[in-house]
C-alpha cells in the first residue's frame, strides 16, 4: 500500500528510475533488434559521413577549415540554432496550456483535442507548408482580411517569423504529446493538498504542478529543438534568403556540387554543436528534477 502510494507521488522520470532498480538480468537483450537496426541504418552511414568529411577530396581537416572560414556557413549555422530556439519557445507557449486543457476537460472534448493534434500527423508536411503559403503571402488570406478591415498588411511570408510560425505548426504535436503524457500522470490531489495547507491556487500550480510537469517539457523541447535543426522544406518555402537553414546548404553541397566531404563536415558540425548544447543543458535539467522531487 505504501509502495503504491509512494510511487504515485513520483514523476514519470523518477518512476523509470524506480523501475530500473528491479531490472532483471538479460532483459537488455530485448533491445537487440532495435540496436541492430540503429547500427545498420544510423551508425554505419553516420560513420561514412564522418569518414568522408575527413578524407574527401583529401585527407585532413580541409572541409572543416572551409566551413568555419566561410561567413555564409557561420551565419547560417547560427541562424539555424536561433530559429530552432524560437520554434521550441513558441511551441512550448502554445503546447503547455493545450496539454493542460487536455487533462482537465471531459472525455469527448479530450478526444476532439487529441484529434486536432493527430490530424496534422496524417497530412504531408509539404501540403501543410503550402497551406501556410496561401495564408501568409502578401496577397494571402491574412493580409486580405487585414486590408478588408482597413489595416495595413504585414509582411509574413519570406520572413523569419513566417518560418517560425510554419515550423511551429508542423512540430507542435511533438511538444504537446510528451507534456500531456506526463501531465495526465500528475496526481491532482497534490494541488488540493497544497490548497488545504494554505497555498493560493497560482502558487500551488507554479510550485507543485509545473515542476512535476517539467520532464514532459524537457522531452518535448529536446525533440522539437532537434527536429527544427534539420528542417528543410518549410524554411525553403516560407522563408526568404534570410531564413535559409543549414540543411539547405548541406543539400546544395551534396546534391548540386557533389562536395560530399564538405556536406559531411557540415552535418558533423551541426551534430556536434547539438550534442554540446544538450550536454550544457543536461545538468540544468537534472537540477530541476531534484528540486521538484524535494518539493513533491
Amino acid at each position: 500500500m505504501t509502495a503504491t502510494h509512494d510511487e504515485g507521488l513520483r514523476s514519470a522520470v523518477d518512476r523509470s528510475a524506480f523501475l530500473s532498480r528491479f531490472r532483471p538480468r538479460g532483459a537488455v537483450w530485448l533491445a537487440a533488434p532495435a540496436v541492430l537496426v540503429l547500427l545498420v541504418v544510423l551508425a554505419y552511414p553516420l560513420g561514412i559521413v564522418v569518414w568522408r568529411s575527413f578524407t574527401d577530396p583529401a585527407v585532413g581537416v580541409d572541409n572543416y577549415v572551409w566551413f568555419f572560414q566561410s561567413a555564409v556557413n557561420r551565419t547560417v549555422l547560427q541562424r539555424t540554432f536561433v530559429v530552432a530556439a524560437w520554434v521550441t519557445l513558441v511551441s512550448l507557449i502554445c503546447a503547455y496550456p493545450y496539454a493542460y486543457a487536455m487533462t482537465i476537460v471531459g472525455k469527448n472534448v479530450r478526444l476532439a483535442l487529441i484529434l486536432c493534434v493527430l490530424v496534422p500527423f496524417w497530412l504531408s508536411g509539404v501540403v501543410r507548408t503550402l497551406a501556410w503559403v496561401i495564408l501568409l503571402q502578401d496577397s494571402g488570406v491574412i493580409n486580405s482580411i487585414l486590408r478588408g478591415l482597413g489595416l495595413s498588411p504585414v509582411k509574413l511570408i519570406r520572413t523569419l517569423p513566417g518560418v517560425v510560425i510554419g515550423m511551429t505548426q508542423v512540430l507542435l504535436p511533438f511538444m504537446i504529446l510528451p507534456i500531456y503524457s506526463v501531465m495526465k500522470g500528475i496526481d491532482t490531489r497534490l494541488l488540493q493538498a497544497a490548497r488545504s495547507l494554505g497555498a493560493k491556487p497560482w502558487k500551488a500550480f507554479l510550485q507543485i504542478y509545473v515542476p512535476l510537469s517539467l520532464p514532459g517539457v524537457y522531452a518535448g523541447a529536446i525533440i522539437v529543438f532537434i527536429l527544427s535543426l534539420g528542417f528543410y522544406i518549410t524554411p525553403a518555402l516560407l522563408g526568404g534568403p534570410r531564413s535559409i537553414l543549414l540543411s539547405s546548404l548541406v543539400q546544395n553541397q551534396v546534391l548540386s556540387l557533389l562536395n560530399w566531404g564538405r556536406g559531411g563536415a557540415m552535418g558533423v558540425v551541426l551534430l556536434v554543436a547539438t550534442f554540446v548544447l544538450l550536454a550544457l543543458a543536461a545538468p540544468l535539467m537534472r537540477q530541476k528534477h531534484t528540486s521538484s522531487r524535494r518539493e513533491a
Partner: protein
Amino acid sequence: MKKFARALALTMTCALALPAFAQDKPVAGEVKEGSLKGKTLTFVSYGGIYQDGQVAALKEFVDKSGVTLLNDGPTEIAKLKAQVDAGNVTWDVVDTADLPPYVHCGTLFQKLDLSKLDVSKIPPGQVGECSVPAMNYGVVLMYKNETYKDNPPKNWIDFFDTEKFPGTRAIDGSGDPTGGLIEQAFKATGGDPKAMTADDIEKGIQKLRDLGPDTIYWKTGAESQQLAESGEADMIMMWTGRAMTAVKNGAAYTPVWQDWLVVMDQMTIPVGVKDTDAAYALLNAYLGANAQAVLTEKTSYTPINLDAKPKVDDTTAAFLTSTPERIAQGYQQNIPFWVKNFDLAAEKWNALLSGN
C-alpha cells in the same frame, strides 16, 4: 519516302546480317525491329507530365525494338555519382539539367560517339561532348500587366532597374545558378558579358543582391506559377512551360521575349552502363521527328528535331521557342565559361540565396 527507303534498306541489311553496314548511318527516330528483344533499359528523368511525355515519345521505340523500358527518377547527380563510384550503374539513359553533362563529362557521363546517333536535325550548337538536348525551353521575364500598364519592361536591363520599374522581383532559386541571368545582370552594370571574367561573377551577383531584400527566390517551378497566379510579384523570371500554364490559368502577366534565356534538358549515357549500344538506340529514337512531336504535344516543351510538326493550341504555340522569331530573340549563355567557373558561381550563388 526517302526515309522509308532508308528504313527498308536498314531492315534488309539487318536481315542479311551485315551489322557493320547497318551501323554506318543511324537515322533519328528509327530502330531495328526486335533488335532489343529481351533487353531492359532504365530511363531516368524528372517525373510528372514531363517524363510521361518522354515515355509517350518513346512508345514507338519500345514497341518496335521489343525493349522493356523501366522508369526511374527524379534525376539526382549525387545518386548517379554513387552508382558510378560503386561500379553498379542501373541508370542507362539520364535526362539532366543544362550544365552537369559538361561539368562531369567523361567522369559521370560518357563521351558520345556521334556515329551512333543522327544529330543532323538538332538545332545548331546544342550537341555537347557528352550530351544531346532532351528538349528546349526558355527562361522569360514575365511582368504583371496591372503594375506596368502602358510602360512595361522591355528586357533584362529593365528587370534590374528598380528606379524606373519599381516592384517585387522573383528569381529562379531552385538550384544551380542560371548563367544567362548573371550575364544579363553583369550587362546591366555596364559590363560586356562576352568578355566576362571570373571576378565579374561577383559583380553580376551584386546586381541581383541590389534588387533588395524583398526579392523572391522561388524553389520550384510550381512555386513560380503560384506566384504568378496569385499576383505576388511584379516581375517573375519563369520557365516558359510554367509561364504558359500560369497564363492558361488566368495569370495577368505578359512575357518579354527579348533576350529570353535559352535552356535545355540534356540526354546522357552514364559511364559504366551495361549495354551502351542499347542506350544509344534509345537516344537515337528519341531524337526522331515523330517522337519529338509527341513530346511537345504532351508537355508543351519545344522539340529538338527541326522537322517535328507538333499539333498544339494557340497558347502553347505562343510559348514555343523554336520559331525563327524566337530563335532570333534568344540569348545563349556562355556555356564554357560557366562550366569552367561552376564551383565559384555556385558558391557565390549560394551565398546570395542564404542572405549573405
